[in-house]
C-alpha cells in the first residue's frame, strides 16, 4: 500500500527542495567573488537574518580563494568579532589571522565606529581650531553619537574611504540594521540635499545678514523661520545648531561631493548587492522590498542569499505519513511482530542496547554533516559532506540525560515520558518520526514563503544556505557557511542510488 520511497525520490515529490531553485536562477557565489571586476559587495536585508555572518563568510571565502579582501561590519556579535580579532573599536581594518593564505589572499576586517568616523572627517577637513569648535559643540556630539541615520551616513562614508585607499581588491560591506531599507540607500542623497538645502541657508542667515540691502526682503522671511525654529528648539539649542552649521559650512561641499561619489560607486558595474533573508514571511517581504528599491535606484543586484533553509535527508517521507506511522507504533501492543525479519548478519539487530552500537562513531560524525546535501538522497550512510570538516569542531558534546522536567514546554507533547529503562525502540522510532514530521512541516512552510517571493521576482538569482543547529562564532564556522553559500544545489539525480 505504501509506495516505495526509493522509486519516487527522483521524481518531483511535494517537498522537493529544488523546486524554487528550478524556477528561479541559482546564484553562483564563487564566480562573483572570484571575478576581479567585482570590487564591492554590499549585503543588505532586514535585522536578524544573518547579514553580518554572510558578509564575514563571503570575505573569508574570497580571501582563501586568493583575493585581498576587507570586510566592513557594523555590529557583529561579540564572539564573531573576537574570533576575527576586531572586537576592539579602533576604526581601522585589521588583518585576520588564521586564514588559509595558500592562494595568496588576505582578509582584513573592521567594525564601524560611527562617532570616530565622523570625528575623523571633521579633523581631516577643518583647520585645528575650527575642528575643535565643531567637536566640542553639543549639537555635534549628539549628532555623531548615533541618532537616526548617522550610522548609515558613516557606513557610506567609510565605504568611500576604503575604496579610495585602493588597498584591497574586494570590499564587502555589511549594512546597518536600519528601520527600513530606505535609510541605507537614502543616506547619501538625504545628507546631500540637506546640506545643499535652503534650511542650511536659513540657519546661517543671522550670521550672514550683514548690511546687504538686496537681501533684506529675503531676510525678513528667514528671520521668521529662525524665530519659529527658535521657539521650537529653544534659543540655546538653535544657537548650538547655528554655530555648528557655520563651523561646518566649509566642509559641506566635501560631504556632498563624497556622498554623491559613493552613491555613484554603488551603481557602478564593480558593485554587487546581495539581499540577505531567511525563509520567513517578514524577512522575505522586506527582501522583496529591497529588490524593488535597488532596481528603482539602478543599483546592481547580484541575487538573494536565503539563510537558514531547512532540508531533510528523508524528504520522501511526508509529514502525514510520518505521523501516521508514529501512531501505528504507539498503538502496537506487541512490538515483536516486525514486517521484515531481522537481518541475521547484523548482531545489533537483536539487542537494542548492544555495546557495539554504543561505540558506533557514526552518530557523532554525522552531526550537521550532511545538511548541505539535502538534495542528494543517494548519500545516506556516508558523511562526505564538504561542509562537515569545519563544523565538527564546534559540535558540543551531547548533554546526556538533561533534566526533562526542567523544560517548560515538555507538557506540549502528548508523549508520556517514562524512565529510560522502560523505553522501547518503538517509542524512540515514534519520536524520530514526529521529529521528522515537524521538520517536513517547517520545510513546506519555508517552501511556501519562498515560492511567494519567487513568483514576485522570478528574475532574482537565489543561493540557499542550509540551516545550522547552532550559532557561528569562529573561522571554521564561517568557512562552513561559505561552503554552503557557494554550493550550487545540484540537479536532482537522474538515477536512483
Amino acid at each position, binding site marked *: 500500500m505504501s509506495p*516505495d520511497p*526509493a522509486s519516487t525520490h527522483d521524481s518531483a515529490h511535494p517537498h522537493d527542495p529544488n523546486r524554487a531553485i528550478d524556477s528561479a536562477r541559482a546564484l553562483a557565489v564563487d564566480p562573483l567573488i572570484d571575478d576581479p571586476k567585482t570590487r564591492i559587495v554590499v549585503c543588505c536585508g532586514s535585522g536578524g537574518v544573518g547579514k553580518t555572518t554572510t558578509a564575514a563568510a563571503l570575505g573569508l571565502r574570497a580571501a582563501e580563494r586568493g583575493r585581498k579582501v576587507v570586510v566592513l561590519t557594523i*555590529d557583529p556579535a561579540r*564572539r564573531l568579532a573576537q574570533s576575527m580579532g576586531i572586537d576592539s573599536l579602533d576604526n581601522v581594518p585589521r588583518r585576520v589571522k588564521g586564514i588559509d593564505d595558500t592562494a595568496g589572499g588576505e582578509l582584513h576586517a573592521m567594525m564601524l565606529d560611527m562617532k570616530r568616523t565622523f570625528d575623523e572627517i571633521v579633523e581631516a577637513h577643518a583647520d585645528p581650531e575650527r575642528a575643535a569648535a565643531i567637536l566640542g559643540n553639543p549639537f555635534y556630539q549628539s549628532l555623531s553619537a*548615533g541618532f*537616526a*541615520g548617522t550610522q548609515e551616513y558613516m557606513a557610506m562614508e567609510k565605504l568611500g574611504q576604503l575604496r579610495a585607499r585602493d588597498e584591497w581588491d574586494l570590499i564587502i560591506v555589511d549594512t546597518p*540594521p536600519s*528601520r*527600513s531599507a530606505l535609510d541605507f540607500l537614502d543616506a547619501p542623497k538625504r545628507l546631500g540635499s*540637506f546640506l545643499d*538645502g535652503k534650511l542650511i541657508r*536659513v540657519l546661517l542667515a543671522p550670521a550672514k545678514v550683514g548690511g546687504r540691502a538686496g537681501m533684506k526682503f529675503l531676510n525678513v522671511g528667514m528671520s521668521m*523661520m529662525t524665530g519659529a525654529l527658535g*521657539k*521650537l*528648539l529653544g534659543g*540655546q539649542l538653535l544657537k548650538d545648531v547655528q554655530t555648528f552649521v557655520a563651523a561646518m559650512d566649509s566642509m559641506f561641499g566635501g560631504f556632498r561631493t563624497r556622498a554623491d561619489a559613493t552613491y555613484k560607486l554603488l551603481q557602478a558595474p564593480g558593485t554587487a548587492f546581495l539581499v540577505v533573508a531567511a525563509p*520567513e*514571511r*517578514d524577512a522575505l517581504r522586506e527582501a522583496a522590498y529591497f529588490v524593488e528599491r535597488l532596481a528603482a535606484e539602478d543599483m546592481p543586484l547580484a541575487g538573494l542569499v536565503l539563510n537558514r533553509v531547512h532540508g*531533510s*535527508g*528523508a524528504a520522501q517521507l511526508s509529514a502525514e505519513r510520518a505521523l501516521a506511522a508514529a501512531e501505528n*507504533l504507539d498503538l502496537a501492543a506487541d512490538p515483536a511482530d*516486525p*514486517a*521484515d525479519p531481522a*537481518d541475521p548478519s*547484523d548482531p545489533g*539487530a537483536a*539487542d*537494542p542496547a548492544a555495546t*557495539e552500537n554504543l561505540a558506533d562513531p557514526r*552518530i557523532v560524525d554525522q*552531526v*550537521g554533516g*550532511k*545538511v548541505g546535501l539535502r538534495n542528494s538522497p543517494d548519500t*545516506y*550512510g556516508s558523511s562526505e559532506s564538504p561542509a562537515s570538516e569545519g563544523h565538527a569542531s564546534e*559540535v558540543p558534546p*551531547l*548533554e*546526556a540525560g*538533561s533534566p*526533562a522536567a*526542567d523544560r517548560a514546554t*515538555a507538557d506540549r*507533547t502528548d*508523549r508520556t*515520558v517514562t524512565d529510560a529503562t522502560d523505553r522501547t*525502540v*518503538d517509542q*524512540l522510532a515514534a519520536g524520530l*518520526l514526529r521529529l521528522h514530521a*515537524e521538520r517536513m512541516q517547517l520545510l513546506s*512552510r519555508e517552501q511556501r514563503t519562498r515560492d511567494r517571493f519567487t513568483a514576485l521576482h522570478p528574475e532574482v538569482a537565489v543561493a540557499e544556505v542550509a540551516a545550522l*543547529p547552532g550559532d557561528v*562564532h569562529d573561522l571554521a564556522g564561517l568557512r562552513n557557511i561559505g561552503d554552503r553559500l557557494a554550493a550550487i544545489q545540484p540537479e536532482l539525480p537522474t538515477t536512483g542510488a
Partner: protein
Amino acid sequence: MSRLQVVSGKGGTGKTTVAAALALALATEGKRTLLVEVEGRQGIAQLFETEALPYGERKIAVAPGGGEVYALAIDPELALLDYLQMFYKLGSAGRALKKLGAIDFATTIAPGLRDVLLTGKACEAVRRKDKSGRFTYDYVVMDAPPTGRITRFLNVNDEVAGLAKIGPIHNQAQAVMRVLKSRETAVHLVTLLEEMPVQETVDGIAELRSARLPVGRIIVNMVRPAVLDGGDLEFLQAASRPSIAKSLSAAGLGGARRGGNAERLVEPLLEQADEYAERHTLEHEQRAVLRELGLPLHELPLLAEGMDLAGLYELATELRQQGIS
C-alpha cells in the same frame, strides 16, 4: 500593572507579533488597548491583514472576551506638524518649514527629535482621559525599536532635555521622561532561544537598568515543541540502527533490510535527531542564561502553520493563560 507596555527585541524575534498579541491579551472584557507602531513599517496592518494604517487611532480588532484593540502608526513628520499646530498654532509657518526641508531635517537628522516625537505621542495616549475622567486607553502597547537601540530611543528625552536646556522641547522631553521612568512603564524584551538574541537581551537589560528604565518581562518567542526528551536522546546513543529500521518497518514504512525503504530512513532520521540534540543542548543553556536575569519569563510556541491572524489570537490566549494580563 504598568499602563505603557513597551515591546522590544532583536530583529527577527517577532517583536511586532508579540506586541500585537500582548495588546489583544490585555484587552480583556470592557478594556481598551492602543497598539502603537513607531518605525513606519506598517507591520501591524500586515499582521492584522488590513490596509496600511493612517496616522490616526482606529479600532483594529475585538479581543477574545470583548475588549477592543485600537492601532496607531505614528508618522514622525505628521506628529511634528501636529505638535507645532497644537502648541504654537504654527499652521502656515509649519508648512513653510516643511518646504524648506526643516521638517525632514527635524525628523531624520536633528538629534533625537524624531524619537522625542514618537515617545511623546505614546505618552500622550497613556495620559489622555475622556470627558468623564476615565483613561481613554487602559493600556498602550508600543512596538518599539530593536533591543540594540531601545535604551537610546527611550532615554533620548533625557539627552534632549540636556541638549535643549530651555524651551518647549525641553519641557516636553522632561514630561515624557517622567512617564517612561515611572512604574507606569514596563519594557519587555522578546528573544529566541538562540545565542545572539539571548546575548542581546542580557546586554539590553543591563543598559535599560543603568539608564533606570523599568524592565518588565522576557518573552521567549517561537519555542519549538519538545519532541524528544533527554532520556530519548540518551537512548538514541544506545539503540541499534537495525532495530530502529525494524520499528519503522513495523509501522508500515517498508523493508528493514539493507537497502529497504525503512532501512533507508534510519540514517536521515538519526541525523535529524542529532541536530535536534545539538539544538536542545543550546536551548537548555540559553534558557538557563535567561533565568539568571531574575525576570518573569514567558514562552510562546512556534506556530506550525506560520504566523497569521488565527495564530495571533492563539498567542494572545497563551499570554493570558500565563498571567500576563
